[in-house]
């Protein structure tokens, strides 16, 4: 059993070692025979697609789950964390994918939360925070409220919450997904500083650029198994990618490749000059206020031509959700107009918007895009069920036959059209939603919000394949995404949203990356 850790080799003695770890959830095996060592002073990256078992691995280390087989050793002793509190007490800290902060409390109070009882020593804590700020380059106002902070600053709070405990093992689960380019660099910098003080960092990611930049060692997971390891990741990057996606890098869709940071350049720029301009979607001075009267979208004006892909960039929470909700007919704007050709769609119902030929792929697939408790076939034709109805009776056979044809065409993988939608993987769910919206009989405009979020590389490629094909057919496409790489590779033109306003727009040229990054941070160009 104990073959991987060697107690005599003092220099390489691992801080944490996993030995043949297996974890099952019901009949699903999330991790199978996973062995790896984390050594002090290293940054160990865990690379893998969505569903590869990365988060499960983190949760095992942090004591959220218990393994079904295998053993963990920490600092040379068997390690069975009873829960996150136990793991924390033993010097393991974790930054989760989703923030766990109380938004109407201050930074100091959030840091103190769960650490102290009785009288809170806010002042002492604030001093500690300032020391950390200098040590790691993490400036923070200790008395600022969380809700007033940007996403990047909130993550800094999460990191400080961990660092203040001086952990010997620091686990970060996909920490860069919500950050601006500059903030990513700063975060990687913090990781390096932590590691150089003799502690270990586990960084979970699916972005190769980060691995190239920072990783000392890499373990690649696929389908819950370790499929590759490397101590020289920068040199082995192609092999690692191949292991991660189990395929040939060269045949990978260029947009999908750029998503994981493989090929930042556009493979072949489509010729847009020959196209005659004809407006499809026209958004004119759209303004949205939330229920408290705060401006969420401020005088948003944009035109999308037929056969054009316009990207809306920006850090999440800067008005993108409101924009797509208004276009989908799910939210009433305070002002402005939306036109599709000559047809005004402002304040139209979702039904009218669908009938007019606007397809919507909503950012929150589960809340808006599908009904997970219903079947795949029902979801694929959710907005066209009347086509399968005669005298009020649903012709289920015909519905399922048509849905099976759609599954074939859009490569939606499931046991059949009658399966429960919730049994599909995220990628297949998204392909089904896309199939429904992109096959509207008179589609003229497609609004896709974060269409590739949470998808693996194969599904990303498929989604872009269909979006491009629609574009070639002359459909106007509005693509809202927080992934700048994705927009740079897919879109023709990019506008940047910041606090509900358009900060600027430019051609989707990788050379504009810096400029777009600055606009995303609120600097007008």
């Amino acid at each position, binding site marked *: 059993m104990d073959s991987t850790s060697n107690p005599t080799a003092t220099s390489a003695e691992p801080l944490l070692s996993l030995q043949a770890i297996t974890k099952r959830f019901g009949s699903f095996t999330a991790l199978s025979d996973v062995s790896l060592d984390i050594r002090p002073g290293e940054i160990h990256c865990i690379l893998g697609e969505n569903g590869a078992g990365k988060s499960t691995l983190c949760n095992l280390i942090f004591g959220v789950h218990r393994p079904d087989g295998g053993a963990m050793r920490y600092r040379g002793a068997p390690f069975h964390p009873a829960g996150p509190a136990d793991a924390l007490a033993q010097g393991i800290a974790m930054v989760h994918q989703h923030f766990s902060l109380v938004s109407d409390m201050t930074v100091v109070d959030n840091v103190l939360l769960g650490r102290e009882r009785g009288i809170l020593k806010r002042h002492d804590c604030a001093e500690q925070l300032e020391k950390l700020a200098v040590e790691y380059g993490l400036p923070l106002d200790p008395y600022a409220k969380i809700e007033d902070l940007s996403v990047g600053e909130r993550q800094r709070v999460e990191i400080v919450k961990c660092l203040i405990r001086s952990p010997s093992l620091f686990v970060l689960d996909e920490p860069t997904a919500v950050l601006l380019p500059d903030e990513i660099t700063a975060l990687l910098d913090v990781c390096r500083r932590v590691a150089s003080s003799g502690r270990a960092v586990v960084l979970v990611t699916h972005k190769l650029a980060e691995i190239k930049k920072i990783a000392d060692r890499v373990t690649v997971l696929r389908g819950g198994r370790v499929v590759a390891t490397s101590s020289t990741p920068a040199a082995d990057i192609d092999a690692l990618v191949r292991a991660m996606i189990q395929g040939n890098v060269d045949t990978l869709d260029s947009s999908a490749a750029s998503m994981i940071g493989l090929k930042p350049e556009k493979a072949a720029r489509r010729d847009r000059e020959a196209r005659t301009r004809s407006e499809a979607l026209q958004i004119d001075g759209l303004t949205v206020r939330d229920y408290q009267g705060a401006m969420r979208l401020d005088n948003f004006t944009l035109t999308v031509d037929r056969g054009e892909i316009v990207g809306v960039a920006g850090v999440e929470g800067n008005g993108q959700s409101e924009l797509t909700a208004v276009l989908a007919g799910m939210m009433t704007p305070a002002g402005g107009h939306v036109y599709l050709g000559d047809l005004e769609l402002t304040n139209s119902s979702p039904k009218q918007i669908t009938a007019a030929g606007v397809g919507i792929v909503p950012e929150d697939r589960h809340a808006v*895009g599908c*009904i997970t408790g219903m079947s795949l076939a029902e979801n694929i034709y959710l907005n066209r069920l009347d086509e399968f109805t005669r005298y009020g009776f649903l012709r289920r056979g015909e519905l399922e036959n048509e849905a099976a044809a759609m599954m074939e065409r859009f490569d939606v993988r499931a046991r059949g059209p009658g399966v429960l939608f919730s049994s599909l993987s995220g990628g297949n769910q998204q392909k089904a939603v896309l199939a429904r919206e992109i096959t509207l009989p008179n589609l003229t405009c497609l609004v896709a919000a974060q269409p590739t979020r949470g998808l693996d590389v194969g599904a990303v490629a498929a989604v872009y394949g269909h979006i491009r094909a629609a574009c070639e057919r002359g459909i106007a496409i509005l693509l809202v995404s927080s992934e700048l790489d994705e927009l740079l590779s897919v879109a023709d033109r990019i506008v940047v949203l910041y606090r509900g306003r358009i900060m600027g727009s430019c051609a989707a040229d990788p050379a504009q990356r810096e400029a777009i990054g600055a606009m995303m941070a609120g600097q007008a160009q």
Partner: protein
Amino acid sequence: MTALEQPSQPAIRRFPIRPALLVPVAAVGFAALVGLALIASIGVSVPDAIAAFVDGTIGSPYAVAASINRSVAFALVGFGFVLANRANLTNVGGEGQIAVGGIAATAVALYGHVSALPLGLAFILPMLAAVAAGAAWGAIAAVMRVKAGTNEVISTLLLSFIGVWLLYWCVQSPLLLRKPMTSSATLPESLEISDETKLPLLTGDYSFPLHIGLPLTIVIAVVVAVLLSKTELGLRLRAVGLNPVAANRAGMSYARTVIFALASAGALGGLAGALMLLGEQYTLKDGFSSGYGFDGLVAGLLARGSVTGVAAAALLFGFMRSGGINMEMVAAVPTALVVVIQGLIVITLAGATLFIEKWERK
């Protein structure tokens, strides 16, 4: 990396007792045993009590018919509950819907000049009036839900009180449905409805008073089951119930679906009230609905969305109530005890189902 053989898939645990029918039977048996222990503890002879119970349920053709007539009312309210529940709406207003149905049926039967009408219209029109009144009562809650977001559990419950007290007012006020006051001893109740407006009996024999409510309810059960499983409307109810936001995005009208669901539930409650009045009681009096709305609600809850489940629970409750009444009259067992046993059945059934589900998931 070392290649290990694929770990064998753990078999899904199945609860050893199958079919699942055994669970409700065991729950009913357990509750009955506790009930008998309670009866013994208050000093009533257990054999006497059992004899009275059996006599009141299946002891005579009359008892069987009366029990089934009760079950029919429970079942209608239960079907309505299941229908609304498909849209994730909880209709707890059966009691009030029965009451307004009873009022409407009485008013039309007594003062609607329907007695002379041919083709059964004499009792069909009061029934339709009751259906309309119940539907309106349910629709009030639906409109409140759609317009103001009022929780339908609260609104249907409070509307129940209004309905029950409305009925009380109707039978107390000579200006409304109270029979003419000939002396100070005139009871606060309506006149008896005319024979033409009473529901025809299936056999025509008063010793077996099973009325046409039973076949009508069977037809309604089939309609509700088909509607829920085979029609676009049933799918729409389910879609709105599971995810109103996504259903709205897909072009389904939340308002129309909610109003349809609660109005249908109310209509079935109103129909139950009509059957109770036109088929059994013949005069409207205070306490007319006597908890039938709540028993129907429990039948709907226990059935967990299944129409046959509602029918089974309604039959059980109908016979239990008849047996309980007879136990009180013959063996001096308080009816409250039957209610206690009924409550026990509900708790053991629900508990056993939960237990099995948890056990299988482990």
